[in-house]
């Protein structure tokens, strides 16, 4: 799960080396905290959160496979 979010985020940003994901795993849910370089924030959020929404949709599909709920948080 963590790796997938990292791959997606790295494909979108200008500084892939600054992409960092922290995974907090609960019993039924996973929280993924995504950190990117300051200049890349827009690239993972998008206009009106469009990109963030698409990322969450894809991650949700992956979570179904693992029978978990996933929430993706983008940290500043």
């Amino acid at each position, binding site marked *: 799960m963590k790796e997938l979010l990292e*791959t*997606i985020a790295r*494909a979108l940003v200008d500084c892939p080396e600054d992409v960092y994901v922290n995974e907090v795993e609960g019993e039924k849910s996973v929280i993924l905290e995504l950190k990117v370089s300051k200049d890349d924030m827009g*690239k993972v959020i998008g206009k009106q959160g469009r*990109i963030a929404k698409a990322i969450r*949709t*894809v991650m*949700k*599909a*992956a979570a179904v496979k693992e029978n978990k709920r996933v929430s993706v948080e983008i940290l500043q």
Partner: protein
Amino acid sequence: MADYVEKESKSVEVAIEEALNEMNIDKEDADIEILDEGSKGLFGLIGGRNALVRVYKKVDYEEIIKSFLYPVFDMLGIDGDIDITAENNTLNVKLSAENIGIIIGRRGETLDALQYLLGLAVNKRSDKFMRVTLDVCNYREKREETLIRLAKKLADKVERTKKNITLEPMNPYERRIIHATLQDYGHVETYSIGDEPNRKVVIRYKREYRKA
């Protein structure tokens, strides 16, 4: 990131040559766009115009697409093939896999999200915009056929009963198919109500009849 060089010269060939030299790449690794063919003018004297070309370093789209999609496949536990065809400024990515439901998602929302992200990833590295479409086992094609059939069926019903019918929520692309299908179909007209992501198409009986 400016990934191209523009050159102006007497002829297209010379301009391309100069651009390639400056970028230090071979013709095979370049995408060439001719902005102006130039013209010799009258007797090569009056009104002559230089040729203008723009040369891009070819981006390996296939590599970008595959390195994006394979990890997604892995995570979703899908074993599938990726087939990429390019035409003009469009890259058509077709997936064939079993267990495709998970990659399509509810009303195709996962597929749309993947298509959107893939488009961003592909266009990140280049100034030239490429449209990216993503389909899995002809889902979109079949969905389009289904929607067209549904639209016509419901339009016939509206015409018979003269009562409005509201369809289930659809994304903009699917609503467009309905609107387009019914544009010149029978005595009905269509419009959309509600907010995304619950925007729906309404089919209404057209009261006054316009002669064609």
